[in-house]
């Protein structure tokens, strides 16, 4: 497929034109944090910070989504009916996160209409990471700073421009219609590829994770969990920052004969997550709940999806108020079994 070059001075025009067909989401600064939000007319994204605090999965899977409205006139389903959504500036880990979460919402048997209403016909233009952070570890879990899974177009920042590589038919079609870009020459592609190689080289060498799933299964009752999870606060900072977490709760809120049914993010870290009607809680201790998070991402999802349920974005590492570090967890468990 043809690759293109977008001069940074033309970024505004590019996004304007994209906004004709799509609702364009990109990272924007909000106070001290960056978060994905719909670009307003003429607004430029904030692309300096490598990763947003909240993952862009909330574009397709909002934290609170009204799925039904009910009242005296009956019940109405409330899918998104806006323009198809284009995401500009998601990182490769974020884009891979979309794929992992989608496996839960869309499969042979079940297609979640609320997810699909936002995701269908959409476009993901991922911006690769020329300078991965020290807390990034995408290369440990089968990803990389210029990984292509989940993106329609991969963008590489080469200084004064972005090199845009379409990866899917949707990406190819979208770029073919853009006015503000030009075809690349070999020099451009070489520059991009050099950046890709340098970025991957700059990341710490990953530990071998081939046996992680089997080691984890054998370590389920190991006493190391008690020490490792002792400082966990049991909040949802990690799960709500995670691009691959998908658990949700459904609540009805009504007043005077009318109301809404909402789907909201839930977290396995809260005791209520597993509390049963009888009052019994199979995961009574915070240890069992935090263990669940790691087992789910590195063992159970590996079993059901064929790859780890973690994209190595590092958000949980920086979000955790007590500095529980998933990378330490991976090192400890691979060490433990190497004994």
């Amino acid at each position, binding site marked *: 497929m043809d690759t293109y070059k977008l001069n940074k001075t033309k970024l505004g025009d590019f996004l304007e034109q994209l906004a004709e067909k799509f609702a364009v989401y990109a990272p924007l600064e909000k106070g001290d944090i960056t978060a994905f939000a719909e670009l307003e007319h003429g607004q430029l994204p904030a692309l300096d910070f490598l990763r947003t605090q909240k993952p862009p999965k909330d574009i397709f899977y909002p934290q*609170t989504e009204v799925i039904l409205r009910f009242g005296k006139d009956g019940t109405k389903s409330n899918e998104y009916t806006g323009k198809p959504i284009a995401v500009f500036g998601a990182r490769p880990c974020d884009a891979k996160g979309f794929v992992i979460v989608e496996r839960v919402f869309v499969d042979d048997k079940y297609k979640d209409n609320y997810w699909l209403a936002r995701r269908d016909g959409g476009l993901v233009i991922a911006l690769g990471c020329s300078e991965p952070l020290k807390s990034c570890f995408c290369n440990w879990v089968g990803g990389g700073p210029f990984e292509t899974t989940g993106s329609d177009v991969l963008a590489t920042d080469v200084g004064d421009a972005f090199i845009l590589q379409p990866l899917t038919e949707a990406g190819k079609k979208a770029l073919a219609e853009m006015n503000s870009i030009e075809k690349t020459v070999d020099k451009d592609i070489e520059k991009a590829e050099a950046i890709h190689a340098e970025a991957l080289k700059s990341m710490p060498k990953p530990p071998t994770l081939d046996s992680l799933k089997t080691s984890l299964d054998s370590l389920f009752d190991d006493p190391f969990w008690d020490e490792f999870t002792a400082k966990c606060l049991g909040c949802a900072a990690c799960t709500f920052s995670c691009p691959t977490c998908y658990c949700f709760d459904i609540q009805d809120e009504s007043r005077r004969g009318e109301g809404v049914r909402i789907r909201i993010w839930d977290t396995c870290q809260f005791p209520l997550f597993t509390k049963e009607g009888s009052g019994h809680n199979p995961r009574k201790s915070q240890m069992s709940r935090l263990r669940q998070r790691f087992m789910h991402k590195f063992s159970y999802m590996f079993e059901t999806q064929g790859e780890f349920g973690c994209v190595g974005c590092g958000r949980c590492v920086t979000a955790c108020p007590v500095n529980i570090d998933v990378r330490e967890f991976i090192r400890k468990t691979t060490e433990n079994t190497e004994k």
Partner: protein
Amino acid sequence: MAEFEPKIMAFLCNWCSYAGADLAGVSRIQYPPNTRVIRVPCSGRVDPMFILKCLQDGYDGVLVSGCHPGDCHYISGNYVARRKFAVLKVLLEFMGLEPDRVQFSWVSAGEGEKFSQVISRVTETVRKLGPARKLVKTGYRE
């Protein structure tokens, strides 16, 4: 154009203020009908959450009324409540909520006239403030 009729919630302690309200009724004292009453055993029973929930629910004003200090049927319920309410009122005002939307009073069982005056005052003050908007739950309306 109909005049705005505020909706007011009043938490009245059973032993003093509720009895005072009853006396106002028996004495046929006229006062605005905008107030709904919830009877509680003591003003100390009123959790700030009740007040906030009323505001979330769209009530334009909330009144809590109890026994005069020293007269509490449970000895000290209203003393502890007094501290709680001071903190709540100060916080809501600091955050920018109209201070007159949440009010407190001491009305005894024999103060039927005072009860009607308290209700009239609260109703007119809240009427002037207009419909409550700041904490109202919208039901995720677009």
